[in-house]
Structures are given as structure tokens and as C-alpha cells.
């Protein structure tokens, strides 16, 4: 593979560019647009976009080949040029191309520096000192994150936008931790996780609007409902092999959504259910004026009313719910059932030979995961005060799954990092927002190719014979 020579690399890059041009010729080049109902469709030609993209792919491929050949400087220069063009305020045919070209540059630079960086990091973590720092780092990192999460609402940053984002990220962290039990620990690829989220959300929506039950009373019911659904759905399908299970859970997710859309008498169909009450704080509501028989939080505490109080309250609820999920998952992992989940993920045949009932064990993972989705769902309904089937589409399942996968299956802290990365960043960089799903999909492909074990691949044993070595020695 060494030094194939520049002509060969150019030829390879040209071939890649040619394939890219062929791929894009129709789909990118001819944009179909409506021209009034009578005339049907016409074209809006986008060949300039296509040309820029093809040139960027040519340069990107060339850069990647340079990097693979060990020609570091040409690769870095190419990457820098691409990155500069992407970032420069010059006129490209569309805003998307700035991202495209810029990210291509980043990819080339990243690929070039990767072997060097990973070697350095590898050396550092192998040295006794590095090991100690690494271990202390992972231990303290979680606590620092937690402390930051707890004090965030009290800091001056806690405006409406930040708190909204915080609640959103924590919801996904909780869902990620819940799904991590199913996918990360038990190795069951569940593509219909959002169905249990929907069960929880509709449980609260219906019980609160129809029967007047409060959030705290419904929360356990919603969890139990979702877990029951998990058991009922899981029992027949958990015998199936991994990839079949994925498709069947996907099918179940869609069935639940279709039922929510079509069972209008119960769910009000696509119009959804509105007017859902928010959670109360020891009976106090978060509103400017309280309905009869209640008082507001502001009255109770004797502070002036502020709109952010409700958000901060929601933030702490989801923070606590997420932490409970985390603690529960960590606990379960150290129990026999948790070890059996991991063993099943590794080798189901061997588990059966050891007298472990695979179906029951998988079922508990499935039901526990579903239960936490149910909790999160009823929180979602209480936060939005409105639910409709649109919130529970397949893509939500895919987002939660990609958080788990990107984080490193089975890693709790990885889920947090991935949720901040996948949910937080796109919200901050609004203009990337429209391309968010595209980036999502590509990220899943790239992660599987380059780091299939996720960001945090380290696995901590659930039980040790020797005391954990501290510091050097090792």
C-alpha cells in the first residue's frame, strides 16, 4: 500500500469524483419545482452546486489518500484549503456548500492527525501516570458534570433558551440511559423505543385530562403501563435473532403510532391532546394565577412570579428522573440480572448452557428500558402540555439509538456526551439545524466505520477479585 505515486492517487480521486457526479447528476442537478397546478413540474438547474460539491469531493478524496499514504503535509494543506474555503465569506451557490466544503476539510485534517493523536493518547494512557490521571479523570469528570448540571439554573446563564435546551438535553440523556439498558447492556437492538415513550406520554395526557390525576400520581402508573407494554410486546418477539428483533420492534413502534393516529375516540387522532396540566410542587402550580383550590408557587414561596420558575422546576424534575435512571442502571449492572444481560449480549448459546433463561432475562431488560421511557414520556407530556402522534415517529427512536451508539454502547457518561453533541450542538448552531438529520445519519455511518465501540469504549468490570489498583504499579 506504500507510495502508489501521485498519478495513481489522482486517478483514484478522479474516479471518486466521477462516481459522485453520477450520483448527483439527477438528484442534485435537476431540482424539481412546482410551476402551478396545471403545468406540473419544472426544473431548477443546480449544476453549479453539483460542480462545487464534486470538486470538494475530489480534493477531499485526494487528501484522505495522502493521509493514508502517510504524506502528512500535502494532506494538511489540502484540508486547510478546503476548511478555509468553507469558512470564508465568499459566494458559494448555497449555504449548505459552505458546510459541505468546510466539513470535508475538517475530515481530511482529522484523518491526517488521527494516527498521530491516537498514538500519543495511547502512550499517555499506558504510562502509569497517565493511567492514574485517566482513572481520576473519569471518576471526577462525572461529578463535575453533575455539579455543573445542578448549579446551572442558579447561574446568570439560566435564561429561557438555555433552560429549554437543558430540559431537552436531559430528556434525551434519560431516554439514552433507558435505551442503554436494552441496547448497550443486553445487546437487543430496539428500533421502536419511542413507542414506550408514547405510551408514557399518552398515559399522563389521558389520565390527567380525563380523570384529573396529577403528574406525581401518574408517573408510576405511566412507568408501569410502559413496562407492561414492553412485556406484552417483548414476550413473543424476544426469541428472535438480533436483526429480526430490530425490524419487529420497528414494526411495533409504527403500529403504536398508527393506533394513536387512527383511534380518534381515545386519542383525538392527529389533532392530539391539549390542555395537559403541568407538574405541581407540593400542590402549588406554576402560573401567574392559580385555579380555585390551588395556590401558585410564587405565593407559596413568597417570591414574585417569573416565567422561568416553571422551567427551572421542570429542569430539576428531569434531572432527578435522569439520575434515578442512571443509578438504577448502574445498580442493575452489578446484580446477577445485569451480568446476565451482558453475558447474553456476548453469547446467548453459552448462557443457555449455563442454565440462564434467555427469554426472561431479555424480557426484564426490555421492560425496565420501557419503564424509563414511560417515565420520560409522562414528563414530556407534562412539559409540552400537548401530545400528538407526530412526536413519536421512527426518527425519534433513531436519534435515541444514535445517542447510545455514539456514546459507546453500555457507557453511561458516553450517553451524556453524545446527547450534548447530537442534541445540544444542532440547537446552538441554528443554521446547521436543517441539515441536522443528514449529519445524524452520516455520523452513524462514520462512527461505525471508525470507532464502532463509540466515544467511550472502556468497560468497567462489575465485580473485582483484587482491589482496584490505585496510582502506579498496576
Amino acid at each position, binding site marked *: 500500500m506504500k507510495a502508489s505515486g501521485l498519478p495513481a492517487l489522482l486517478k483514484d480521486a478522479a474516479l471518486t469524483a466521477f462516481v459522485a457526479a453520477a450520483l448527483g447528476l439527477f438528484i442534485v442537478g435537476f431540482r424539481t419545482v412546482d410551476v402551478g397546478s396545471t403545468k406540473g413540474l419544472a426544473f431548477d438547474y443546480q449544476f453549479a452546486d453539483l460542480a462545487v460539491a464534486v470538486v470538494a469531493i475530489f480534493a477531499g478524496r485526494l487528501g484522505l489518500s495522502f493521509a493514508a499514504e502517510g504524506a502528512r503535509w500535502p494532506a494538511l494543506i489540502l484540508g486547510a484549503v478546503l476548511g478555509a474555503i468553507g469558512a470564508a465569506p465568499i459566494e458559494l451557490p448555497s449555504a449548505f456548500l459552505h458546510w459541505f466544503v468546510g466539513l470535508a476539510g475538517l475530515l481530511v485534517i482529522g484523518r491526517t492527525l488521527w494516527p498521530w493523536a491516537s498514538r500519543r493518547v495511547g502512550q499517555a494512557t499506558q504510562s502509569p501516570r497517565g493511567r492514574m490521571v485517566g482513572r481520576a479523570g473519569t471518576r471526577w469528570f462525572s461529578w463535575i458534570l453533575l455539579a455543573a448540571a445542578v448549579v446551572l439554573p442558579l447561574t446568570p446563564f439560566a435564561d429561557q433558551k438555555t433552560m429549554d435546551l437543558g430540559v431537552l438535553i436531559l430528556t434525551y440523556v434519560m431516554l439514552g440511559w433507558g435505551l442503554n439498558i436494552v441496547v448497550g447492556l443486553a445487546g437487543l437492538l430496539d428500533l421502536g423505543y419511542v413507542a414506550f415513550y408514547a405510551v408514557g406520554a399518552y398515559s399522563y395526557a389521558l389520565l390527567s385530562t380525563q380523570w384529573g390525576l396529577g403528574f406525581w400520581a401518574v408517573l408510576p402508573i405511566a412507568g408501569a403501563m410502559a413496562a407492561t407494554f414492553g412485556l406484552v410486546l417483548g414476550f413473543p418477539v424476544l426469541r428472535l435473532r438480533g436483526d429480526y428483533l430490530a425490524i419487529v420492534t420497528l414494526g411495533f413502534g409504527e403500529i403504536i403510532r398508527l393506533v394513536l393516529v387512527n383511534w380518534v375516540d381515545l386519542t383525538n387522532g392527529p389533532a392530539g391532546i391539549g390542555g395537559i396540566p403541568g407538574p405541581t410542587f407540593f400542590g402549588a402550580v406554576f402560573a401567574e394565577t392559580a385555579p380555585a383550590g390551588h395556590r401558585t408557587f410564587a405565593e407559596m414561596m413568597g417570591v414574585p412570579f417569573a416565567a422561568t420558575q416553571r422551567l427551572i422546576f421542570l429542569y430539576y424534575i428531569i434531572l432527578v428522573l435522569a439520575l434515578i435512571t442512571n443509578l*438504577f442502571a448502574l*445498580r*442493575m449492572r452489578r*446484580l*446477577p*440480572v445485569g*451480568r*446476565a444481560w*451482558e*453475558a447474553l449480549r*456476548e*453469547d446467548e*448459546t*453459552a*448462557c*443457555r*448452557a*449455563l*442454565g*440462564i*433463561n*434467555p427469554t426472561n432475562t431479555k424480557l*426484564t431488560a426490555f421492560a425496565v428500558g420501557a419503564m424509563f421511557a414511560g417515565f420520560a414520556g409522562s414528563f414530556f407530556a407534562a412539559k409540552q402540555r400537548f401530545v400528538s402522534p407526530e412526536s413519536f415517529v421512527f426518527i425519534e427512536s433513531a436519534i435515541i439509538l444514535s445517542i447510545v451508539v455514539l456514546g459507546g454502547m453500555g457507557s453511561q457518561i458516553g450517553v451524556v456526551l453524545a446527547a450534548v453533541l447530537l442534541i445540544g450542538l444542532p440547537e446552538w448552531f441554528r443554521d446547521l439545524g436543517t441539515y441536522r438529520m443528514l449529519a445524524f445519519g452520516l455520523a452513524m455511518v462514520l462512527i461505525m466505520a471508525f470507532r464502532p465501540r463509540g466515544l467511550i469504549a472502556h*468497560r468497567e*468490570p*462489575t*465485580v*473485582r*477479585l*483484587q482491589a482496584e489498583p490505585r496510582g502506579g504499579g498496576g
Partner: protein
Amino acid sequence: MTATPSLIDVERLTMRFGGLLAVDDVSFSARPREITAIIGPNGAGKTTVFNCITGFYKPTVGRLTLRGDRDYLLERMLGHEIGQRARVARTFQNIRLFTGMTVLENLMVAQHNKLMLASGMSVFGVFGLKRYRTAEAAAIEMARGWLERIGLVADADRPAGELPYGAQRRLEIARAMCTEPLLLCLDEPAAGLNPRESAALNDLLISIRDRDGVGVLLIEHDMSVVMTISDHVVVLDYGRKIAEGPPADVRRDPAVIRAYLGTAEGEGEPSV
């Protein structure tokens, strides 16, 4: 023939895959505190017999009775029940450890059913009650005992997949023993071992028989292992039983000699 009651009775076992008759009307018995070896040329149906006993295949015809705390008809039980209730444990021809988990964790998973009960189906465990903690400590002690016997105490917290091949074989046997079985089925445990490891394996198997009092059913190609340690030998060829008896008798049996010399490779010729 002594009059000790048998541990497992295999009666008229027949297994058919489509048109292929893998096991044809095989009957034999194994007694507790004995090592029973099943030998035969490649494709003789040895592993199929194992897979029927341990519930991976449903036999086409035949009865498999394990005489434990009561009589269990293995052919009617689900795969995991055979390990859990009839207390039959097994290893695999191509080692199947939980490679990503540590050595100790492998042995803990083997004690799953016992620990599940102690953790009150996880309820006590979640709240960290004492009853579960005592049971877990006992389980770790048992695992430590086995690690001492197979010489892997120092490796207890390493991922099982990192162990050298011979250690993985021993660990798989220890893992099967941690289920506290009555019958231990070993599928070619000496395959790929060097002579020193093979001798250590012989000692381990003998101690499992004599010290733990477990009946061992053994598939083996290595005749030195079979002839040294087994008490009883069953010979299969083309799915049929062609001989049975003490090792010394079987070795002289003309049918056995014919079966082995008849194979083109002559692999596993019964010479000591």
C-alpha cells in the same frame, strides 16, 4: 458391570437432519463419579449426542433420563432448564466464553440462578440488602476457589478474551463447574493444548471426578487423554455405537480398530 445406579441413561437416541441420519439408535449410560468418554472418527455423531443431551437439538427419537434429585427427561426440557434444574453443564468445541467480560465475571454469570434467588429476583439487590451481599461474597469465594484450581487467580480481573488459549479452555471448564452440575459434558477439552497443558487438564478432570464427585462425559480425539483418565468408553461410528466398555477392552475391540483404520486420514488411531 457394577451395580451402581447410572447418572444418565441414553436410550435409543436417534437424530435425523433432513435426509442425514446423524445418530442412529444409540444407547449408553454414564455413572456418577466416573469419566465416560465418547470417541469415534470425525462425523461419527459425538457432538450431536452432546447437543441432544444439553437441549440444543430435539432428538428425533429416544429417551434421555438424568437421575438427579429426581428423574429428568431431558428431551422434554427447554435448553436452559437442563442446566438449571437437571444440572447438566457443558463446554463447547470452539470455546464460548464471554470474551468482553472479566474472568471473574464469567464465573459469576455461571452462578446466575443461585444469585438471582438470593437477590430476590433483583428486588433485594437493588436496595443493597444484606442477604444478597452475603450471597455475592460466597459466590466470589467459590469463583476464587476455582481460579486457584485452574491457576488463574492473578488474571481474575482481565477480560476473558485476553487469556491464552489453554487458559480459556480451563476457564470454560471452571465456568461450567460453577453451575454446580451433576453431569459435566466436555466437548474436546484437550483440543489445541500442548502436552504440558494436556497433562494439567487430566489432573483437573480427575480432581473433578474424585474431589467434586461429578460425573464427566467427554468427547475426545486425543487417545492419550481418553485411555489415561476415562473409566468407561463408548465408541461411535457413522452415528452408531460400535463398542462400549473399559478403555483396555475397547482398545482391543476389532470393530473399533476397523473403524479407525478405515478412515483415510487415520487421524486419532487408538494407540497409547
